């Protein structure tokens, strides 16, 4: 980032580190400050200093036992996904594709490279006008590279959920990853998923959609990536 970048004159420089580490900035401010941190060593130092305390705050709350039902639900999902990975790996290895064959994915995704031309179809539910915005759910139909795939981004109160159908299984030793495009840059999320046998999945998009131009999905090596390694298979434009 150059010094000419307008973010260098960020208004909250010097005073937003504390609300940042406490999670008390608005979603838009949080993102702006995060970008500012990339170019401001003083704020980075302040954040590092205060984060030590903020990160220790959970220890101050009364300690409770997590319900056994939650453990059962989490472990059932985890074990099922672990088995799925193991089942898929041998089959995948038997017809392992060379690196160049990833082109199939890129080829399929080529339609999506016109992401800039994506026309998001926004259907406002819950009537027009009159009611509170927070009660609306917007359904945004996404571009999907798979011929029979469909995906809808449901947006409610600034948060999104991807509802996917007919998407092929992710390629060998890969997993689908959700990305948020802000200011022309793809930011990773911790939403990694596989699809069912029928190609379906419902995925909560982490965080707020404030400032997000598009929600995208790519196939990434297991464990996810910090920068996309393939072209998106799903692009949902967010206005």
């Amino acid at each position, binding site marked *: 980032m150059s010094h000419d970048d307008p973010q260098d004159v960020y208004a909250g420089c010097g005073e937003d580190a504390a609300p940042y580490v406490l999670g008390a900035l608005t979603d838009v401010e949080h993102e702006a400050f995060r970008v500012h941190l990339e170019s401001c060593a003083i704020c980075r130092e302040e954040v590092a200093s205060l984060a030590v305390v903020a*990160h220790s705050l959970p220890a101050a709350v009364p300690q409770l036992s997590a319900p056994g039902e939650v453990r059962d639900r989490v472990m059932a999902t985890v074990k099922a996904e672990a088995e799925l990975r193991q089942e898929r790996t041998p089959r995948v290895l038997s017809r392992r594709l060379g690196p160049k064959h990833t082109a199939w994915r890129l080829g399929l995704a080529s339609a999506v490279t016109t992401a800039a031309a994506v026309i998001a179809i926004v259907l406002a539910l819950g009537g027009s006008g009159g009611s509170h915005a927070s009660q609306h759910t917007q359904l945004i139909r996404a571009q999907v590279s798979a011929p029979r795939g469909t995906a809808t981004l449901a947006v409610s109160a600034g948060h999104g959920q991807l509802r996917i159908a007919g998407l092929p299984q992710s390629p060998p030793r890969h997993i689908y990853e959700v990305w948020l495009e802000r200011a022309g840059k793809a930011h990773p999320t911790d939403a990694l998923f596989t699809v069912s046998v029928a190609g379906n999945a419902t995925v909560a998009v982490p965080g707020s959609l404030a400032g997000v131009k598009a929600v995208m999905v790519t196939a990434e090596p*297991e464990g996810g990536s910090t920068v996309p390694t393939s072209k998106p298979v799903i692009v949902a434009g967010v206005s």
Partner: protein
Amino acid sequence: MFNPLRSATGERSAGHLRVLADEELMQLVYRGNADAFEVIYDRHADAAFSLAMRMCRQRSLAEDVVQESFLSLWRSGARYDRKRGSVRTWTLGIVHNRAIDALRRKTVRDRGVVSDEGIEERIPARERTELEFARRDEARELRDALEGLPEEQSRVIELAYFGGMTHIEIATMLDTPVGTIKGRMRLGLTKMRMALGDPAEVVQ
């Protein structure tokens, strides 16, 4: 050289896994080892649920937050970077972010106001290992540091961190300028850091 990730037979039983450090377990979680994840879950689920309950103040919502957080951890284990803190800190950071997301989907009025009251389902944690005793000491020091702050500083920290409120919402609620709220947050955190044994900065 002994490889802690692998027994003599190459198997990684749950018993073997439980002697491993979190950071070693995360390497296995990254590779899709559900048993390693189970150990991580058992070590940190109580702390995660305690934080979620404090923030959400609603059992069903807290359960959802914990469930989402650990599944996220399972699916994104590769993101863990030990240079940026412990697995526990990383896990609780995920829980905190998820709880904030959940809280901000609700109206401010629905969230209620953070106070020392209102946790109706207080359950004692089941295990008291040496580590738990050490953590209780840490917790006591932390509570002392927080309670040792002037009320106006501890209050904004609690409303922000545990209440999931933005500085703007807090300023409105307390009828106080935004800049003052931010200043109280900074001063409070800095004083706590000093109280907890890091006197690197002089507090005015």
